[in-house]
């Protein structure tokens, strides 16, 4: 086991990477070497801490001090003050955006109080590149238990009883999936881990793979034992190089320790894992498309049945689970079905990881028990909206989810409630919107994504989504009519009803949910030709309020197209036929003389 007793953990979340996570790591290592502490203190790049807006974050483990906004220049101070002298570096401590107070350690963090970490249990705690460290934190204990004490049926029963449902979006009962795969007899079967995380802004799978890869490997081996398979495949996006690298290291180390490969821990059970790379297609998150992609075919879905559990990879029974689902398995085996099913709601058990983003103070990954309300997530964990803006909507479920409003805030989050409200769980994206977000533009933004990512196989998704997008564009330019709104709804309903796979069956959700919840905004666009949020360029004007304008000429000087005229110390005027609505004047004006209408 590692002799190092203190760890300095540098988050390698998205923001942190951008803000020099690597440089900080290097700087900390250099400073530790300078005081000859490199053997006592370890510097680890870990997964997201959920404080992305304050990144980069350095956490001191095990005590839990959190330093935020760290730069490489701060390394010396952290090492000299905190590590050597035991004095916290006050200026780098995290400031609670709600109270303005400095937070001494993570236990005092309000955003963590409501959270329960099962999936992310080891992320940011263990060294993902050291199997010994993972074992010290309990990895492979569940596998050992299953292999030595249980029949496959017993383990499947535990998973079934726990109520675990697929975290990739579908919410299919995991235990049942395993049971079906077990019952389909075949000389060969496959366990596939779907790590083709494609929702824009979602990175929970990446965090697990980067922070705790052994959790996934262990669960895949357990699944292999349960369904009768010796072959594991991880289908991962090639755009996740760090996750791929850590998976490779983890697989190699697990093999060395006899935790993968032939005769695992002397039980006679064989199981090994290979990595397959995705080529950057959102639709390959759909399991049949994923399997085709792994087979070297065009990544497009086929009609189910046959389900992969009957005929999957190379025509053999195949069990496909998502990373987050697998990450739940070991704790369930160790702590029991009752423990897991005591968490959550009646039909959705356990926890769910969300990527909280948008207009919210604390952005980042959070893990909460099912049944937590949207209000708790946004206002307590998320710390509310910045700049005291008014909450308008929250979009859940990734690009195919729906936009929920004020009235849904007290809905306990689970698979069924979100669907009933017109959205979905998806893989766990959660984007908060405020009063200046235009819902027509939001719907158009998501359609833009699904139009790009449709595989093109079935007509409603291939052409229908394009037509939806065009009509939204038409409306946002002020050319729409009330009849277009009806057509928007009809096209959406038909695309959902007739598309081949989950992508098309859910892609119109942003349109339908905004039509349901924000009809007044659509009507403003088509009747009054106005965008209430002031986002649709073609429907707004920048105007100068004469009373407020002092004639400083700042706006005229910044205008890139010379649309603003006026004498010094006289009110100015914007020539609407020339204005390109770039907003530069609006930003520049110090006297609130320019308004958007």
């Amino acid at each position: 086991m590692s002799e190092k007793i203190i760890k300095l953990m540098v988050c390698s979340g998205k923001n942190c990477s951008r803000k020099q996570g690597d440089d900080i790591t290097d700087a900390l290592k250099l400073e530790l070497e300078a005081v000859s502490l490199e053997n006592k203190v370890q510097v680890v790049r870990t997964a997201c801490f959920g404080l992305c807006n304050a990144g980069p974050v350095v956490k001191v483990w095990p005590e839990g001090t959190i330093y935020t906004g760290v730069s490489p220049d701060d390394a010396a101070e952290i090492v000299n003050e905190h590590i050597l002298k035991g004095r916290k570096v006050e200026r780098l401590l995290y400031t609670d955006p709600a109270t303005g107070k400095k937070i001494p350690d993570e236990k005092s963090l309000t955003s963590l109080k409501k959270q329960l970490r099962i999936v992310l249990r080891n992320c940011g705690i263990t060294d993902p590149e050291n199997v010994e460290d993972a074992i010290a934190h309990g990895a492979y204990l569940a596998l050992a238990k299953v292999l030595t004490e249980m029949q496959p049926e017993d383990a499947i029963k535990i998973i079934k009883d726990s109520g675990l449902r697929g975290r990739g979006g579908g919410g299919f009962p995991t235990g049942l999936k395993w049971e079906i795969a077990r019952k389909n007899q075949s000389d060969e079967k496959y366990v596939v881990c779907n790590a083709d995380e494609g929702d824009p802004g979602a990175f929970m799978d990446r965090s697990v793979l980067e922070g705790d890869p052994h959790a996934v490997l262990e669960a895949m081996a357990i699944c292999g034992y349960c369904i009768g398979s010796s072959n594991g495949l991880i289908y991962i996006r090639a755009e996740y190089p760090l996750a791929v690298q850590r998976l490779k290291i983890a697989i190699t180390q697990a093999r060395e320790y006899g935790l993968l490969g032939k005769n695992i821990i002397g039980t006679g059970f064989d199981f090994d894992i290979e990595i397959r790379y995705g080529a950057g297609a959102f639709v390959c998150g759909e399991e049949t498309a994923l399997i085709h992609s792994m087979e070297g075919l065009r990544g497009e879905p086929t009609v189910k049945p046959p389900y992969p559990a009957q005929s999957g990879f190379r025509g053999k029974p195949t069990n496909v689970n998502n990373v987050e689902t697998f990450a739940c398995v070991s704790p369930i085996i160790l702590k029991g079905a009752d423990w897991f099913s005591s968490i959550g709601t009646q039909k959705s058990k356990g926890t769910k990881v969300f990527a909280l983003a948008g207009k919210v103070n604390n952005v980042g990954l959070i893990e909460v028990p099912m049944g937590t309300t949207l209000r708790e997530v946004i206002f307590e964990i998320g710390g509310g909206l910045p700049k005291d803006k008014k909450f308008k909507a929250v979009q859940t479920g990734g690009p195919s989810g729906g936009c929920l409003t004020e009235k849904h805030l007290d809905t306990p989050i689970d698979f069924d409630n979100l669907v009933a409200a017109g959205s979905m769980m998806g893989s766990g994206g959660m984007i908060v919107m405020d009063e200046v977000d235009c819902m027509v533009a939001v719907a158009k933004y998501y359609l833009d994504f699904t139009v790009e990512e449709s595989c093109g196989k079935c007509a409603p998704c291939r052409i229908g989504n394009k037509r939806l997008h065009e009509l939204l564009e038409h409306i946002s330019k002020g050319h729409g009519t009330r009849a277009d709104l009806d057509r928007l709804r009809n096209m959406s309903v038909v695309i959902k009803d007739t598309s081949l796979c989950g992508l098309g069956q859910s892609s119109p959700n942003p349109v339908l949910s905004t039509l349901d919840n924000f009809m007044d905004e659509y009507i403003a666009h088509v009747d009054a030709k106005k965008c209430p949020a002031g986002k649709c360029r073609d429907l707004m004007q920048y105007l100068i309020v004469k009373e407020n304008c002092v004639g400083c000429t700042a706006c005229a000087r910044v205008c890139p197209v010379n649309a603003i005229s006026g004498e010094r110390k006289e009110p100015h005027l914007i020539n609407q036929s020339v204005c390109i609505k770039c907003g530069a004047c609006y930003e520049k004006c110090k006297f609130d003389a320019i308004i958007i209408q």
Partner: protein
Amino acid sequence: METVKLTIDNKTVEVPKGTTVSKAARMLGIDIPLLCHMELHDLGIENKPAGCRICVVEVEGRRNLAPSCVTTCEEGMVVKTHTTRVLNARRTVMEFILSDHPKDCLICPKSGHCELQDMAKRLGIREIPGQEIAAMSTYRKDTSPSIIRDLDKCIMCRRCEMMCNEVQTVGALSAINRGFMSAVAPAFEQNLEYSPCTYCGQCVAVCPTGALTEVNHTPDVLRALADPSKTVVVQTAPAVRAALGEEFGLEPGTLVTGKMVAALRALGFDYVFDTDFAADLTIMEEGTELLDRLKRHLSGDKTARLPILTSCCPGWVNFFEYYYPDLKDVPSTAKSPQQMFGAVAKSYFAGKKGINRKDMVVVSVMPCLAKKYECQRGEFSVDGNPDVDYSISTRELAAFIKQANIDFNNLPEEEFDNPLGESTGAGVIFGTTGGVIEAAVRTAYELYTGKKLERLDFTELRGFEGVRSATVDFDGLKLNIGIAHGLGNARKLLDDVKSGKSQFHAIEIMACPGGCIGGGGQPLHHGKSEILKARAAAIYREDKNKPLRKSHENPFIIELYKEYLGEPNSEKAHHLLHTHYFERKKKIFVKP
């Protein structure tokens, strides 16, 4: 057999387990519209990507509408095929498809035969909402020697892709791009010319729209006919007479040989000849080659390779030149009947009539699109003058006849001209799978054994099974014969030849499923395999009605050898009637 009972539109039906909802509905007389789905039942070919979503139905208890073409019936299932929800969905999806399809139906080569056009009519589409703001997916057009691709008209039914990959195993076409810009094309959206395409034309034969069509050579033919300095000679392939009538509303399987001859004469061709004559000639050459190789092989000559493979199908020749260049000395060196005809017409016949070959234009009417490419091959010309100038398809001929104001159905029957119009029943059956080898057996038997063949109908060589085999007794010598139609089936036999496992002495291969009757230039079958069966039956009927049924008994063939060629496989015959094969380069060109 296990069955399931279900209700469709309030009617109960019991069907074998595994039956799809659309087929079960058909049993009840409920005709659910299908667009992308296509099935050639007798040939075991089915395209079911479930991509168009036109055939959706409501299944009680299911959240979404189900595509009836692939949804299998389950016990107690309750299906509704024309609820408001279904009808609205079907119409809306059709509007989507049409919104991304050109509206130039009036001048589209597929007009009148277009399944999309038919579907729009059937669903009563009168307008396409939002067309004014709808972008269209557009692509570069591609013209190859045989096939024109206009992907603007592709509806992603994937039939061509299925044909090219699963049935033919050629692998020239696959889906490219994603989302709105998806279409089926060669890799890198390359031209067909730079792909492994064999020009078999099966993609064209199944394309429901005008996305894949043949290159039209009728304007060239018209120009030749109008030129008084040219003697224009036409030859018609055996499979044409069994299908041409379909274009004029006649029942599939109606033989229109006499009317076709009359129509060609009315069009102004100077001599109306028959490719069947050249088919008889092919048998003389190929049959002799077979016997020669067989005798040498039996006497221990290791250089005599067996099996001998037929070589009359140009799609097949293109296939082995690309995929099996190392086997290029295995097929017979005999030219195809089309090219034998051209060579004989422009030498023997032109000489007989005192016509300079440059003043003679040879036109072929073929069920085939690969023939267009074949007649353009450099080795089939003399000083740049091709043996066959233009090859037009059965469909092109029908259109040509219609343009010339000819009332086809009321034409009197006429006879082919001589000498190149006389043929035997053996020449006729070239038009269907198994026919070439049966014709060869009829002649080879008599030449080998010196005895008269008692039984002329080798039914064991007939049928639609993809790969067939039979043993024919040549007076003690057991001749093992293999037959494959469809290039995927050919590949199976060829892999055996390559690995030395093949036990056959002779193998007949036709690129198209069903043989020439199912060629890429034939009237469109729209997925009805009974049409192909009716054409095959017509071919055998024509054979049966012929007074002469063995190629070597054709009096004009005998005369040709006596007057001009000498013996089969003589030096002169070799020069005129045999060819050699090339390796087609497997090189990827990336054109902008």
